[in-house]
C-alpha cells in the first residue's frame, strides 16, 4: 500500500531508492556491551580518541584533495573536538562515574553539547550537533559499530538529523536522495547535500516514523512529496520524470557553452542571480556568463551583529574568484522595514516599501556601508567586481556614494590593503523616478540594471502579494515597457551598458522584446538561463524588432501577452 507524505523540498530533483536509516540508535549495542575494569575502559577511550582523530585527519586530507573546502572545514572542526583536552578530561571523569567507556563518551559529548545549546549565538547552538556527532563516532569506534553498509545501488539517506560525518563519508554516486526530520536549511547536512546537488526533503518531523529501513521511496526535492512503497504505476510515472530530468539536463549541458545569440548574430549576455557565494558553481553549470546580481543580504541576515569588512570580503572574494574573470555584480544591502534586522533598529513603519530601506539606510549608516564598499573594492583584486546600488531615486545619492567610495579607497591605501581601481559602479533602475531620469543618471554611472520586481510594483502601485490586486501586476503593462525602453535607450545614448535582474528577465517572451530594445545583459536565477537562451537562439533580431514595433502599438498588457504567445 503506497503511503504519501509531504515535507519541505529543499534541494530540487527526483530520487528513487531504498531507504538507509542513519543517525541510528546505539541502544542495542550499549546494552550488549561488556564493561571491563576501569583502567581498561579508560584505555579504550584513549585509544578511540586517537584513532578517530586520525580518521578525521585523513578525511580532511581527502576532502581537500577533492577540492571540497566546505566539507573539509567541517571535518577539521570535528578533528579539533576529538582532540580537545576538555572533552578528553570529561570523558575520563565520566568513565569513573559510569564505568562503561561508550556511555561515558556519549554522556561527556552530551554535556558539552548542552552547554553550547544554551548559548545565545545561533552559530554556537548549531555546533551542538557537531559535538554530539563526534561523541557518537567515538562511541561507535569503541562498540565496533560499522558505518552503514552500502551496496551497489544508490540509497536514500533518512534520519531526524544526519550527522555531517555520515553524509560527507559516502560517495555522491551512492546517495540518491536525503530525507531529514529536522527543518533547518542551514544545517551542515543540507549544505553538503546542496554542494553535491542531491535531491533533499526536510522538515518531516514525526512523519519520519513511518519510514522503515529498506523501504522503497520516491522523493521530489522540488515539491517535497514522498511516496513510500509506491505502486508500479507511480514508479513508472516517476521513472519517466527522472528520464526527462536527465534528458533536459543533457540538453541544457549542450546549450551551456553556446552563446545567447540570435540567428543573425546579435548577442545578449545571460548572467545569474545568486544569494550566496556558494551558488556560483551551480550557476556556472547552466552556462551563465558571470553574476548579474549577487544579493548581499545574506551576509547581513541571520546574525546578531553587523558583519565585519573581513567577513564580507571573504564572501565577495570567493564569488568574484569563482566567476573566473567574468563580471560579478554585487548589490549593496537591500533591506528595509519588511525584514528588519535587530542591529539596524528600523522603527516600525506604516509603509516599509516607501520607507527607510536599501541605499537610504546605507547612506545614513556608514558604519554598515563603508565596510561593505571596502570589502567589494578589495574583492575586485581577484577578478571583475561591480558595485550596484538599490532604490536610487536621484543623482545626489549617486554622488554621495561616489564620495564614500573615494574615502574608502583612501582608507584602504592607508591600511595597506590591496584594492581594485576598476570596480564599476551602477544602479538598479527600480523606481519610476530613476527610470524617468535615466538620461541624466547615465552620465554618472557605469551601468544600469533594471529591477523589474520593484519597478512594476512602484509604477503600477500594486502589491503583488495582495491577492485582491495582484492581477494588475504585469511586466508587459505598456507603462512598464515604456520605462524599460527609456532606460535601455538612455544607456545606449550614453555609451554605458544596460541589463535587467528582475523576474521579467527570465521570461523568454520578454527576453525577445528586451533584446530587440537593445539590452546588453539579462540576469536571472540560473535554472532559467537555458529556456531564455533557447528562445533567443531561435529567432532573428530583424524578426524580434518587427515584433517589438507591433507590441509598442498595442494598448494593453493582456493584448501584448496574447500577441507574443501567438507570434513567438
Amino acid at each position, binding site marked *: 500500500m503506497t503511503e504519501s507524505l509531504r515535507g519541505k523540498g529543499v534541494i530540487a530533483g527526483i530520487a528513487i531508492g531504498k531507504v538507509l536509516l542513519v543517525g541510528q540508535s546505539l541502544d542495542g549495542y550499549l546494552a550488549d556491551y561488556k564493561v571491563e575494569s576501569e583502567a581498561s575502559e579508560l584505555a579504550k577511550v584513549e585509544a578511540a580518541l586517537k584513532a578517530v582523530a586520525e580518521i578525521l585527519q585523513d578525511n580532511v586530507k581527502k576532502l581537500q584533495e577533492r577540492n571540497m573546502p566546505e566539507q573539509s572545514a567541517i571535518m577539521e572542526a570535528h578533528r*579539533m*573536538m576529538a582532540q580537545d583536552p*576538555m572533552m578528553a578530561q570529561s570523558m575520563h571523569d565520566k568513565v569513573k562515574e559510569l564505568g562503561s567507556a561508550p556511555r561515558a563518551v556519549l554522556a561527556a559529548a552530551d554535556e558539552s553539547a548542552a552547554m553550547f545549546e544554551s548559548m545565545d549565538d545561533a552559530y554556537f547552538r548549531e555546533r551542538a550537533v557537531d559535538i554530539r556527532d563526534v561523541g557518537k563516532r567515538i562511541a561507535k569506534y569503541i562498540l565496533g559499530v560499522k558505518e552503514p553498509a552500502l551496496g551497489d545501488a544508490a540509497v536514500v539517506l533518512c534520519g531526524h538529523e544526519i550527522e555531517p560525518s555520515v553524509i560527507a563519508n559516502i560517495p555522491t554516486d551512492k546517495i540518491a536522495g536525503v530525507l531529514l526530520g529536522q527543518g533547518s536549511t542551514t544545517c551542515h547536512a543540507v549544505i553538503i547535500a546542496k554542494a553535491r546537488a542531491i535531491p533533499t526533503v526536510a522538515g518531516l518531523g514525526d512523519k519520519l516514523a513511518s519510514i522503515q529501513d529498506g523501504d522503497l521511496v520516491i522523493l521530489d526535492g522540488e515539491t517535497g512529496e514522498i511516496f513510500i512503497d509506491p505502486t508500479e504505476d507511480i514508479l513508472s510515472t516517476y521513472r519517466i520524470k527522472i528520464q526527462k530530468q536527465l534528458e533536459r539536463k543533457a540538453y541544457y549541458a549542450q546549450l551551456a557553452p553556446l552563446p545567447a545569440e540570435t540567428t543573425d548574430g546579435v548577442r545578449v549576455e545571460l548572467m545569474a542571480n545568486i544569494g550566496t557565494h556558494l551558488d556560483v558553481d551551480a550557476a556556472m553549470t547552466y552556462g551563465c556568463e558571470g553574476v548579474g546580481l549577487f544579493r548581499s543580504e545574506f551576509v547581513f541576515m541571520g546574525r546578531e551583529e*553587523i558583519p*565585519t569588512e*573581513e567577513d564580507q570580503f571573504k564572501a565577495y572574494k570567493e564569488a568574484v574568484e569563482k566567476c573566473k574573470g567574468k563580471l560579478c555584480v554585487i548589490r549593496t544591502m537591500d533591506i528595509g522595514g519588511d525584514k528588519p534586522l535587530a542591529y539596524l533598529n528600523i522603527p516600525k513603519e506604516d509603509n516599509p516599501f516607501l520607507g527607510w530601506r536599501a541605499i537610504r539606510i546605507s547612506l545614513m549608516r556608514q558604519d554598515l556601508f563603508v*565596510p561593505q564598499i571596502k570589502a567589494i573594492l578589495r574583492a575586485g583584486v581577484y577578478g571583475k567586481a561591480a558595485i550596484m546600488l538599490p532604490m536610487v531615486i536621484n543623482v545626489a545619492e549617486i554622488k554621495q556614494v561616489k564620495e564614500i567610495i573615494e574615502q574608502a579607497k583612501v582608507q584602504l591605501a592607508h591600511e595597506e590593503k590591496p584594492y581594485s581601481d576598476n570596480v564599476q559602479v551602477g544602479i538598479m533602475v527600480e523606481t519610476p523616478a530613476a527610470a524617468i531620469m535615466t538620461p541624466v543618471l547615465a552620465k554618472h554611472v557605469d551601468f544600469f540594471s533594471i529591477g523589474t520586481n520593484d519597478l512594476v510594483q512602484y509604477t503600477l502601485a500594486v502589491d503583488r502579494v495582495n491577492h485582491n490586486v495582484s492581477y494588475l501586476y504585469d511586466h508587459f503593462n505598456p507603462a512598464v515597457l515604456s520605462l524599460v525602453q527609456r532606460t535601455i535607450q538612455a544607456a545606449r545614448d550614453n555609451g554605458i551598458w544596460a541589463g535587467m535582474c528582475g523576474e521579467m528577465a527570465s521570461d523568454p517572451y520578454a527576453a525577445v522584446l528586451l533584446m530587440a530594445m537593445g539590452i546588453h545583459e539579462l540576469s536571472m536565477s540560473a535554472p532559467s538561463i537555458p529556456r531564455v537562451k533557447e528562445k533567443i537562439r531561435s529567432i532573428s533580431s530583424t524578426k524580434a524588432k518587427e515584433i517589438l514595433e507591433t507590441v509598442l502599438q498595442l494598448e494593453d498588457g493582456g493584448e501584448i501577452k496574447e500577441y507574443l504567445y501567438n507570434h513567438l
Partner: protein
Amino acid sequence: MEQTVKVTNKSGIHARPASVFVQTAAKFKSKVTVTAKGKTVDAKSILMIMSMGLVKDTEIVIKAEGEDASAAVKALVDLVQAKFGEE
C-alpha cells in the same frame, strides 16, 4: 610567565579566531591557560575557549608554565593584538 591583553577585534574570540588561538597554543609544550571573568581554562581546548564567550573589550590573562612559556605567551598575545587578522 603571564600577560594581560584586551580582545580588540569586533567579533571577539568567536568561531574562527578561537580555532586559530587553540592551534597556536597547541604548538607549544607549556601548559597554557586563559583567565577571564574569574574563570581559568585550558588554552588548548577549543570547547573551553569558545565557551568563555570572549567578546570585544574583554581583558584576558594568558599564562604559560613550561620550557617554552615566554614564547607561547608572546605568540598568543601577538595574535590577540593583531586582531586575528580581522577587523
